């Protein structure tokens, strides 16, 4: 028992010192800062994912409606205004080309 007590008494007198205390302290603060930034980033990422998934699900729920509107709009355009415009513009183009090939017909 005396040997045990002697060893413990000797151990009590020893002082252990953390090397580079300033550096150690700065290192701890940097790690804390990194951890905090990482948490912020994860939170932002989760929010972005949540909003992204929400927007996509909203879009997909209305996709048939949008596709339907687009198809109807396109068929109306073909049967109506666009067809007339195309016929008129191509007709005018051919007429002008014909005139350019035979300029004598105009100037004489």
């Amino acid at each position, binding site marked *: 028992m005396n040997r045990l007590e002697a060893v413990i008494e000797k151990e009590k007198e020893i002082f252990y010192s953390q090397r580079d205390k300033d550096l150690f302290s700065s290192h*701890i603060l940097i790690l*804390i800062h990194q951890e905090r930034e990482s948490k912020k980033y994860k939170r932002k990422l989760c929010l972005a994912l949540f909003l992204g998934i929400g927007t996509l699900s909203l879009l997909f729920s209305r996709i048939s409606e949008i596709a339907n509107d687009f198809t109807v709009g396109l068929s109306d355009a073909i049967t109506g205004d666009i067809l007339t415009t195309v016929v008129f513009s191509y007709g005018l183009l051919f007429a002008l080309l014909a005139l350019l090939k035979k300029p004598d017909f105009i100037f004489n």
Partner: protein
Amino acid sequence: METDEELVKRTLGGETDCYGVLVQRHADYLFGLGMRFTAGNREFAEDISQQSFLRAYKYLKSFNTKKKFKQWLTGIAVNCYKDLSNKENQYLSLEVIDEPSYTPDLGGNTGFFELIKPLAEDERAIFTLRYVYEYRIDEIAEVVDLKSGTVKSKISRALEKLR
């Protein structure tokens, strides 16, 4: 000079630099604790010290400012020591036996380090707190989150091993 508890309050108020003061104030204590728990393994002791400060910051909100910060930090250090020891043991069990084994950097009273080697992790921690740091049984019980009776029986078991 501000007390630890005041510095904790300021840290929680957003002044992170105050935590740096706490780290500087208790770095030697935690390192010494780590050296004694690990029987003189300097690198391991530094890991324990670092992990303890990081964990303490993480759970700083749960610290009761009516209690002693140093004592609360000691409890965290004991838990970190146990966790890191378990991890290290898992790692060592996977190592190839033929490879050269790691020799710890024994700086200090090798007599004490040799003395506590036969003790289990929790026995080492309790024994060191009781006889080197002279904590009372009820204080140790609070630090390691055990009943006083359990602490007493662990101490007597440790003493039996050392005789």
